[in-house]
């Protein structure tokens, strides 16, 4: 395990573009804190975003888990290009000849996926904790340490997404095409949803089917937090709109995403095993 981690860590550490992308990613994650600085002070209208309750415990966990996930594409690029490069440099072949098994090769990549997701989650935790302690109206321990399911959901979302990227990198073997395919797949899911809504017979619930799609399942895992915000709710009530949206982490979405992660792992392994190099 340590050996596999060090093998992958060496590959990443010595690659300049990976270092830059990973560095940029963590700087961006930290930059969530900059939201706190958004402040308008135009005469009678005083607006300070940090005072609007977005950093209140436990809401801050949800809010930051949602915002933090936007930046995951940076690490996705790293994973896809590191995987594709193994093929274009034929270093995967050399790794196997040197005595790494195909399973070990895959595990070294998956260890990196878990490390990326784990460190990101830790980062979000620390940044949220600091922001919360600075701006939250409630700082009782019981409140601070509630709603942690959003952090778990964030972690699983990243794992599944990176697993999907690793799979695409392995299938397509070209980083640009693999990332392009990721975009195409996102559109494909959208089109499928549209078709389901439009054409499916009445006994099929389009929304329930759509829940099963991988990217959609990942995005469902951490639902958008904005409608939970009291400021937004008040605004909506004023215009006579009653918002009924789900903002909780749902058990079945967790199951679906974990299953997809496992499917990506299995498919990638099957492909590695069958393919001649």
């Amino acid at each position: 395990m340590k050996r596999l981690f060090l093998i992958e860590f060496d590959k990443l550490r010595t690659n300049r573009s990976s270092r830059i992308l990973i560095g940029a990613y963590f700087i961006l994650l930290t930059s969530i804190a900059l939201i706190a600085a958004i402040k308008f002070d135009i005469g009678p209208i005083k607006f300070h975003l940090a005072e609007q309750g977005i950093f209140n415990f436990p809401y801050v966990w949800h809010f930051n888990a949602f915002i933090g996930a936007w930046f995951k594409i940076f690490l996705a690029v790293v994973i896809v290009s590191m995987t594709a490069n193994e093929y274009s440099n034929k270093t995967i072949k050399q790794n196997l000849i040197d005595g790494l098994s195909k399973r070990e090769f895959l595990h070294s990549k998956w260890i990196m996926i878990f490390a990326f997701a784990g460190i990101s989650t830790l980062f979000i935790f620390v940044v949220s904790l600091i922001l919360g302690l600075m701006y939250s109206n409630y700082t009782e321990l019981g409140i601070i340490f509630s709603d942690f399911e959003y952090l778990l959901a964030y972690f699983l979302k990243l794992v599944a997404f990176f697993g999907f990227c690793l799979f695409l990198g392995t299938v397509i073997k070209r980083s640009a095409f693999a990332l392009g395919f990721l975009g195409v797949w996102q559109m494909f899911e959208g089109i499928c949803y549209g078709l389901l809504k439009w054409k499916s017979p009445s006994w099929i619930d389009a929304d329930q089917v759509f829940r099963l799609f991988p990217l959609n399942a990942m995005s469902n895992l951490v639902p958008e937090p904005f409608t939970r915000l009291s400021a937004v709710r008040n605004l909506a009530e004023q215009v006579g709109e009653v918002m009924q949206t789900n903002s909780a982490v749902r058990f079945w979405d967790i199951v679906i995403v974990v299953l997809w992660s496992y499917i990506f792992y299995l498919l990638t392994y099957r492909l590695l095993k069958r393919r001649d190099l």
Partner: protein
Amino acid sequence: MSTILTVTDLTKKFGHLTAVNSLSFSINKGNVYGILGPNGSGKSTTLGMILNVVNPSSGTFSWFDGAKNTHQALKRVGAIIERPNFYPYMTAAQNLRLVCRIKEVPKSKIEEKLELVDLLDRKNDTFKTYSLGMKQRLAIASALLNDPEILILDEPTNGLDPQGIAQVRGIIQKIAAQGATILLASHLLDEVEKVCSHVLVLQKGKRIYFGKVTALTTDHGYFELNATDLNALQKVLESHQDIEKIEVYNTHILAYPSKSMTATELSKSLSEQGIIITHFAQKHKSLEEQFLSLTKNQQP
């Protein structure tokens, strides 16, 4: 003698093409083996299969009498396949460190092996700045990191300039002289002839010869002759009881004896017949000629 590798009925099919056809052979410790064959005869595919990167269609192979599974066994093997494959952005030392991690050998060997292939002064330069010859030498250093029980080389001098070829050959000969087991695939016959004790000849994925190089090249040799009177020479040779065949080759006559015959014997009997010889040479078929005649015989 301990067996390092046993290959039994190994077959690889790519669609309807059979790249390797029911190949069997075994490799014993301490010998230097050559795999010979024209391009596309299945040399690299065979090596790919025993090195875990190509899946066999059927048949089996086992390393070290099946004591370990393939990837564990490969940690005791050193191999270079076709082109040197390294991380272009890593330095030579970083690349070798990664190989050490994979093979689970101490990093202390890195300097020693870089010294051996004469790359120590370039160890902190990235791989992409290396010339092809240097890349190939780094590949050799990498293959030697674990002091392998067998070294597998696939076309190690391919694409190198004469100087690079000489350097790589020198390194191989040095390793061979230390009593290492080597498996060398090449289509360069003189390369194999120079370093190998045993040879496996492949054609269209089939084994057409496996055994000692000397057994393949030892025949009775032949004589290359010329005389002032070529017709008389030809007549005398034709009537000679121990000459089974003669051939006219350019201005020379080639005479093939039916049993082993020394130059003195033939020269003596010719001068007894009054032939004045102007050219006389005793020759052996080179591996190249043997190889060509072997592969020609197999043509359908």
